[in-house]
């Protein structure tokens, strides 16, 4: 990604998350934050997801806002970013120390209906310290195992 574009997206990501910090979230309800997030995703695709990653991976945003972002990232039908969104959700499910973030990742993966996430979910359920989240992971696992769906992505170049 050209650095000028990357810099611009980084600024937009930061503004978006600053917006989220001021809002009250409710499940299934859109917000200014979710609308902005999805609009950026639709415009910048995987470049936007790549800009999000360091922010979420290095815990530089409010955990509840991060969790909310992951739900909406999972619910999005933006096809070309499917693979990078799924990687991000799986990575945070397996590596984040915040239950808010892991919960957001679980929900995001449940909305993606992608059976490729099954191995990560199986690993996550082993290491999850909260029983409540373990149950939720189990719920998603059952859902995916009973209904295998694998959307494909098409990325040819890895320059």
């Amino acid at each position: 990604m050209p650095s000028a574009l990357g810099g611009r997206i980084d600024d937009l990501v930061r503004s978006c998350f600053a917006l989220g910090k001021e809002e009250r979230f409710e499940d299934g309800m859109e917000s200014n934050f979710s609308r902005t997030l999805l609009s950026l995703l639709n415009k910048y695709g995987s470049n936007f997801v790549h800009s999000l990653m360091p922010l979420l991976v290095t815990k530089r945003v409010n955990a509840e806002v991060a969790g909310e972002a992951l739900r909406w990232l999972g619910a999005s039908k933006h096809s070309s970013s499917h693979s990078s969104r799924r990687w991000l959700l799986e990575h945070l499910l397996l590596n984040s120390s915040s239950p808010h973030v892991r919960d957001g990742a679980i929900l995001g993966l449940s909305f993606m209906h992608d059976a490729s996430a099954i191995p990560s979910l199986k690993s996550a359920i082993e290491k999850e310290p909260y029983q409540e989240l373990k149950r939720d992971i189990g719920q998603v696992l059952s859902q995916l195992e009973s209904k295998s769906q694998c959307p494909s992505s098409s990325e040819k170049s890895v320059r």
Partner: protein
Amino acid sequence: MPFLLRKIRKVRWLVEADLDWLKEGELPSDPLGDLSTKDNTLSVWHVDTNKSNLDRLLAALASGPDKLSHLDYALFDEALLSKIGIEFRHSPGASADAAANTNWHRDLVELSASKLVELAVGIRAEAQINRLSAMEAKQLVIQGVRSNHLDSTKLRPKLLSEASGDA
């Protein structure tokens, strides 16, 4: 004893092991975000002792948002209210299920801040906190529309369209 139902965000109610500033027995403040009052009143739903109306109420709650999603909820014993000294009264609800609005909606009234905190502590200690997956929620909404419990004209367009996909 009957139960009371309140929609929540489940993850707020997880007590974080790494909150080393939290004294033992204390609740962090995030759960209060799910007990937001208006005019010192909190909206809840009455669930029969045998939970026969639970699915119908969950359908009503699941049909409220902009789009179909999972639904986290807390189900607690009505007796918790008398322990804390909280009064409640029947009042009309605002869901897409008219009968549920008439028969099962309650307002917890005259809520002081301290009673609210006690309620939160009681819910954390005693309530069943569950999650209905998005798929389960969808099935309940579809069922609710088909059985005419839910007035489809009161559903938001995106949610109705998602539910109609399989209806």
